[in-house]
């Protein structure tokens, strides 16, 4: 009955009669059902209670920043799809915005509208996956499939818009690749008409389920100061009660012309800044996105969808930093140009990267099962962290 090398909690008597217990070290991931891709956490646990969870990243590092320096301004756009493949539209948008800012390109109004419509659809797309996997990590599988079902319709819409279901490559420097296809706007309206009740239904199915709420409230509470100090962004930041949205407070594209609310966590069922607040902010953001898309479709102007941009695009030397509100919040693109046909440096600062750097701090003294809730509530997406 050899049980050697078995590092479980062992109780030993000390000299003065007390007991010492040894901690158990668990390697959670990179192959673990709820690490959202390939994250790894080294968990030091005392039974079910974690002392510490140290994130270990880099398993999905594809050196996209280095690739940017090799493939040219236009050629990098398909790669941005892969930065965050759950919400590729935002990365398209960020890169093209940065390039346009460096090159001083005005883009047509209609293209801005197309971009915003695509962005907001993509936000719903991404949030659906986020809330779905969150429910699945908490143990309810059905909400996940319901979310994926809705996401499938969005995939159909994207497929018709840009020919791909996941890696969109929709935006181009100077505008968007394609105009909205005929009849597409009606389909979007139909989708929204159907989707809004589905969000309500989703709320009834899981959001306010007592067990679900109990699993999330008062877990990993992050105060406003901590959130800003760790540079949490987007729904994670708003979950802590900071009312800041790049779309509203540092507007880009046509967002100043649109009317929408920025939902923030209110701590209605627990402490402000807990997992539930981060979750419910996402649910409310989906509704706001629906509102934005409806406005855009109403106000959609006519005109071209792309500006004339030379194929050999060479923006003048300089650097710029653009931010946009991606599904995981404020995404920063620091792009340096040296005046050649290849970007000199491209740094992508993503929302998940900040969030995962915080997990070690917030996961002290939580239960093992809470770590999963924390990962899910941060909406960690591994490709975005590693890039």
């Amino acid at each position, binding site marked *: 009955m050899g049980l050697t090398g078995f590092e479980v909690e062992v109780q030993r008597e000390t000299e003065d009669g007390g007991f010492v217990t040894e901690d158990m070290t668990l390697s959670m991931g990179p192959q673990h059902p709820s690490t959202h891709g390939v994250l790894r956490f080294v968990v030091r646990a005392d039974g079910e209670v974690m002392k510490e969870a140290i994130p270990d990243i880099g398993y999905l590092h594809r050196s996209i920043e280095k690739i940017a320096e090799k493939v040219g301004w236009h050629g990098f756009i398909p790669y941005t799809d892969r930065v965050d493949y759950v919400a590729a539209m935002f990365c398209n948008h960020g890169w093209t915005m940065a390039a346009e800012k460096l090159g001083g390109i005005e883009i047509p109004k209609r293209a801005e509208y197309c971009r915003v419509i695509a962005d907001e659809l993509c936000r719903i797309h991404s949030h659906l996956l986020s809330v779905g996997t969150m429910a699945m990590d908490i143990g309810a599988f059905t909400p996940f499939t319901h979310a994926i*079902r809705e996401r499938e319709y969005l995939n159909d819409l994207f497929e*018709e818009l840009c020919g791909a279901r996941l890696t969109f490559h929709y935006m181009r420097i100077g505008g968007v690749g*394609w105009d909205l296809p005929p009849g597409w706007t009606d389909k979007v309206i139909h989708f929204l008409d159907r989707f809004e009740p589905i969000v309500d239904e989703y709320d*009834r*199915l899981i959001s*306010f389920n*007592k*067990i679900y709420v109990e699993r999330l409230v008062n877990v990993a509470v992050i105060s406003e100061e901590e959130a800003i100090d760790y540079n949490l962004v987007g729904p994670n930041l708003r979950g802590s009660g900071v009312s800041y949205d790049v779309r509203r407070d540092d507007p880009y594209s046509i967002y100043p012309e649109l009317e929408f609310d920025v939902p923030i966590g209110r701590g209605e069922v627990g402490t402000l800044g807990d997992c539930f607040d981060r979750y419910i902010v996402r649910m409310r953001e989906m509704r706001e996105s629906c509102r934005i898309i409806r406005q855009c479709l109403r106000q959609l102007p006519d005109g*071209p969808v*792309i500006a004339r941009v030379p194929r050999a695009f060479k923006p003048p030397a300089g650097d710029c930093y653009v931010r946009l509100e991606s599904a995981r919040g404020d995404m920063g693109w620091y792009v340096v140009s040296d005046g050649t046909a290849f970007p000199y440096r491209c740094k992508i600062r993503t929302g998940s990267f900040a969030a995962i750097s915080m997990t070690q701090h917030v996961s002290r003294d939580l239960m093992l099962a809470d770590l999963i809730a924390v990962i899910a509530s941060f909406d960690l997406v591994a490709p975005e962290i590693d890039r």
Partner: protein
Amino acid sequence: MTIAMGFGIYLRNIKDALATIADGMAVTASHMIRKPVTLEYPDRLPDGVRVQDTLPFRYRGILEVDLEICTACLACERACPIDCIVIEAEKDKAAGGLVMTRFDIDMGKCMYCGLCSEPCPTGSIHHTPEFEGADYSLESLVRRFVKAPTLAYKPKKSGEDDPVIKPILDRGMRYLAEFADPDAK
């Protein structure tokens, strides 16, 4: 007082749990009656329907080249960010133009971005709705379009009149108009 309040919370917890669980179960029960949304791809589709035919026009599937209308301008090769296209063509006075000896696309590398089909002047290189590309070796994923040295197409000022090439060119131009050229309505 506090005991009464505590008991109130206790009862409310029980009530909340029962009510929300019952509502969740009503939602799932309603789904038991609703129709499923699954499409049983690939073998239980409605008669005579191929999924490929139902995909939208912009769908970016496996690349196809119509050599009849390829001008060997190398625009696609230059546009490809991962260099998965290789074209070799040389001037041949005797044949009267460019002769292509190689037009290879490594579909194992291709990332289906569509950058190659955008600069094509005739719509020769284009995405098909075909997406089932699994194969047993990497070598068989390389599509070699030039079987024998081929004379590259030369656009005619007066418009195409060759009955063989005309429909192909028409298709290419239509593709360009609807897919690749974003300005076209």
